[in-house]
């Protein structure tokens, strides 16, 4: 198992002219989960989106050690955001199959029939794991909010990526599905994966630390102070 380290140092991110993240430091190693908490609007999503490479950073650095340095960090992570990234006109299976083929590096490397069966297998496993096998042929448009969320989370299983960025992953999920997600996440951690999750819901991940993003301290000049680590 390759040790992977995600190291975020003195990260500063601005949205329009307002500093949202000021000197955030986070370190995650293989097998570790970090839960980001904090009030609404404090910058949890911004932190995740900055790591995913959507938002340019003003200063500081986001490094990932243990992966091929030629590969961008954004290509080594799964981002589960507010939107489910499911195409409504296609069925659940078609959606997952597309992500399996499109996101899985192994699939591109092999480039033969063998890899095609691997991707089909992983789609079927994911459908079963999230109890979507009976809905597999349904167009996504007909699914309930919770079922859509499950289909979105099933994306985590169809292509392997070491870092998972989960933004409010439990929205619309019932208790049973939260348990499914927790067990999936714990398996990922045991296999040397990394998780950074922003949530208000207490998730029971193994080996998890918590980071709380805070509002600015009125006494200091800094617009925002954040990144206090609570272990």
């Amino acid at each position, binding site marked *: 198992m390759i040790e992977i380290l995600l190291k975020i140092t003195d990260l500063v991110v601005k949205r329009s002219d307002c500093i949202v993240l000021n000197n955030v430091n986070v370190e995650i190693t293989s097998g570790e989960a970090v839960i980001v908490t904090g009030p609404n609007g404090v910058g949890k999503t911004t932190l995740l989106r900055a790591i995913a490479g959507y938002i340019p950073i003003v200063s500081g650095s986001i490094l990932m050690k243990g992966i091929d340095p030629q590969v961008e960090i954004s290509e080594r992570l*799964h981002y589960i*955001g507010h939107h489910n990234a499911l*195409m409504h006109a296609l069925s659940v299976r078609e959606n997952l199959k*597309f992500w399996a083929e499109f996101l899985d590096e192994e699939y591109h490397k092999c480039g033969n029939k063998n890899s095609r069966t691997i991707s089909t297998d992983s789609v079927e496993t994911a459908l079963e794991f999230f109890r979507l096998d009976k809905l597999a042929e349904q167009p996504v448009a007909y699914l309930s909010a919770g079922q859509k969320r499950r289909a979105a989370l099933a994306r985590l299983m169809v292509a392997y990526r070491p870092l998972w960025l989960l933004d409010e992953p439990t929205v619309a999920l019932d208790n049973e599905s939260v348990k499914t997600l927790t067990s999936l996440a714990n398996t990922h951690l045991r296999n040397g994966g990394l998780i950074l999750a922003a949530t208000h819901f207490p998730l029971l991940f193994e080996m998890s630390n918590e980071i709380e993003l805070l509002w600015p301290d009125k006494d200091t000049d800094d617009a925002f102070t954040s990144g206090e680590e609570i272990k």
Partner: protein
Amino acid sequence: MRSFSILLLRDIRVAFREGEAIGTAIGFYLIVVALVPIAVGPDPKLLSKIAPGILWVALLLSALLSLKRIFKTDFEDGTLEIIATSSLPLELTTAAKSLAHWLTTSLPLVLFTPLAGTIYDLDTITCLVLILTMLVGTLAISFLGSIAAALTLQTRQGGVLVAIIVLPLYLPTLIYGTVTVSITSMPPGDPWPSFLLLCSLSLASLAIGPWASAAALRHQLQ
């Protein structure tokens, strides 16, 4: 290149499954083309003279209607941001989506042109040349159009804005497209220079379009 074709095939499948974009574009095209002779009057000479211009304008406007859809649905359901985390460069993503637009909207419109040509009493050669110019010219329409589609992604009523941004860019294509056809139908004159200019416009938009719309998309994804 594998992920390029996977994305392209998915876009084509979604377009045909939804059917909305293709249906609207073809419907609009045929309505405009059918209404003009009724308004202008049944003079075959006049109709065949104005046909290239009318058909080209109708094609431009119909393609314009569907431009917003190139990125809109994928952006709204979050698919686009996940596509951005793949190994496929964003420039190739926009190229695949523009090409999908060309295949699912522009190409069907061009294929309906012979049908429209019968209303205007076009002879076979003029009709063939018209189709050829449209086949080449619509590449510019799809690839330049993707820039406007990417720029206006987050506007609520972006339809007019798309038209304002993109119509000036379409003018050279429109001019050289129609000039090629009218020179062929009314000799003397050599249609080749204007046709080659039309080709060069399309090649230039193939080269510029994906980069410009990828740059616009990077901003939209923030």
